[in-house]
């Protein structure tokens, strides 16, 4: 920080614009990164599961291997999200830190519940087809609902629309049934997230005024 040289109004305005841009770049969550990470994970992950399950299979690998790749993709997207959010939130305290923590716990507990459901379905002898359908549907319902809530609370239309889109895709997918429900979630779900990344990129491209 330079010690105080006198400022003229134009210099002040430039300084405000420059510093504001710097702070926003440093602390604002970049939706593009998160949407691309999850969009790619869904597109490839659900797409691969569909390609394995369809008759005749387009990808000839055991189902277990397909599931392993699917979960690896989700874990990778989760890691990208965690690292990104931690970097942005570093040193930020107060209201939004608390809100972020609460919202994070909603995700964590909801998916702990999804995990418990997977265990229970297996324990009680549900068929692979029924478990697969229930697990996919419950997971994408949680994602869609939390996106909608997030969008509603922060007044972010793109986020809200994406959540609604995922819920509609889930309804269509579950009615379609296996194995095409997986293709629906791959293209509509993953594709929807990538489209949201595009919307975010356009929004960021717009210039701001003082």
């Amino acid at each position: 920080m330079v010690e105080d040289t006198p400022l003229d109004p134009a210099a002040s305005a430039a300084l405000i614009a420059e510093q504001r841009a710097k702070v926003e770049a440093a602390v604002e969550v970049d939706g593009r990164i998160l949407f691309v990470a999850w969009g790619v994970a869904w597109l490839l992950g659900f797409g691969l599961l569909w390609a394995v399950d369809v008759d005749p299979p387009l990808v000839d690998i055991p189902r277990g291997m397909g599931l392993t790749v699917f979960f690896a993709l989700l874990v990778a997207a989760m890691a990208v999200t965690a690292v990104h959010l931690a970097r942005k939130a570093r040193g930020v305290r107060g209201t939004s830190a608390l809100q972020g923590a609460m919202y994070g716990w909603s995700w964590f507990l909801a998916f702990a519940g999804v995990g418990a459901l997977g265990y229970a379905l297996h324990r009680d002898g549900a068929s692979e087809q029924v478990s697969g359908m229930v697990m996919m549907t419950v997971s994408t319902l949680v994602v869609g609902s939390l996106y909608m809530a997030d969008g509603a609370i922060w007044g972010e239309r793109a986020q809200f629309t994406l959540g609604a889109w995922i819920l509609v895709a889930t309804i269509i997918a579950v009615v379609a049934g296996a194995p095409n429900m997986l293709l629906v979630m791959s293209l509509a779900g993953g594709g929807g997230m990538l489209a949201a990344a595009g919307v975010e990129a356009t929004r960021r491209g717009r210039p701001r005024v003082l």
Partner: protein
Amino acid sequence: MGEEALDPVIHTQARLRIMTTLTALPDGDRLTFTRLQSLLDASAGNLSTHLRRLEDAGYVQVVKTHQGRIPSTQVGATRTGRRAFKDYVAQLRALLTPPTDPTDAQEER
């Protein structure tokens, strides 16, 4: 209205950058001293001096807490500070807008 009308507490390079940084965050948010320092590329001593001035004016609040056993200093803009910064930006905008026919003024918003 001339340049002298600009709030002298804010109208210096260092404090303008501090206020811009803190008001860029939502109301109720604070930054740790370290993060603020890195966003400003400021030395700790220099930053402390300017923060004290802003605190005396009631524009920022400096909170000293402990995170576990590690002391942590957090800084946030107060309501008064946010209002002062908003007024400052409005005055700046007025100074930068060339005087026009008063009938055109309506379009400016």
